[in-house]
């Protein structure tokens, strides 16, 4: 059974993408100008884009190790607000350009997926599945 926000004693937080980036030691590689403007409340982590399309909630942050154009298209289609690439992965120039065009901020961190999720969870970012009511 998933542990609710209340029972784990954490306050549900909303923070700017800039703050999120600082928590996971990430640097922006696209749409840097949006870091202060985009607010993040929920996140999901997956390398399988079909899972993102099937289970993510709109407005979430995506953490992924899949740094190809499909990760960006998936974010665009599923109304994902921003992507953080983990484990030092970085998309190619064309994908970065496309992200600028579509207004989707991209960030990169050398940290692994588990560490990023743990830090953001502790900071009060919620699982997008909880918000969408999919988790038990």
């Amino acid at each position, binding site marked *: 059974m998933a542990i609710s926000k209340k029972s784990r004693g954490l306050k549900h937080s909303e923070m700017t993408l800039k703050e999120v980036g600082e928590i996971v030691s990430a640097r922006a590689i696209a749409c840097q100008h949006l870091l202060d403007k985009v607010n993040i409340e929920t996140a999901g982590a997956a390398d399988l884009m079909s899972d993102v*399309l099937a289970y993510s909630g709109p407005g979430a942050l995506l953490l992924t190790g899949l740094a*190809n*154009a499909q990760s960006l298209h998936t974010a*665009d289609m599923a*109304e994902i607000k921003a992507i953080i690439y983990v484990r030092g992965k970085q998309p190619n120039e064309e994908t970065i350009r496309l992200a600028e065009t579509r207004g989707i901020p991209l960030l990169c961190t050398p940290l692994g997926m588990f560490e990023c999720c743990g830090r953001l969870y502790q900071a009060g970012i919620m699982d997008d599945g909880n918000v969408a009511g999919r988790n038990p």
Partner: protein
Amino acid sequence: MTAMLPAETRSQVNTPLLTKAYEIEGGNFIKAGTASTRIKDLLKEIGIPTEVIRRAAICIYEAEMNVVMYARRGVMTLEIHPAEVVVRVEDEGPGIPDIGLAMQEGYSTATEAMRESGFGAGMGLPNIKKNSNTFGIHSEVGRGTSLRIGITLT
């Protein structure tokens, strides 16, 4: 509703308000997603509700990826009706021998290269069905597959 309309307008009921077709190139992972992006932008431009756009976008992107991964080529046709968005996807490809099996979550015939793109885990067709209001599929082995995806505008 249809029965209340005069005879001369009844034949126009199924005529879409707008129709637009988009080509999809099989095997081209670089262009993959282009048709879906264009359709999403068009839906936004004509003022379709955000929630409908998101569900439509998820369906068409999964469908586009299926064409890119499995078929030689395909055409995705968008139809805007007064109460529904319809997307028809027709491809020239190997077809699906067992549709029942293909509709099961997790069943996949994808290659390693397809899986590296973040797709091919047997989620595509079930995901399209889940996000649409009406879903139809027809496939002929050796010829291709056609889908009809309907999303209600409410």
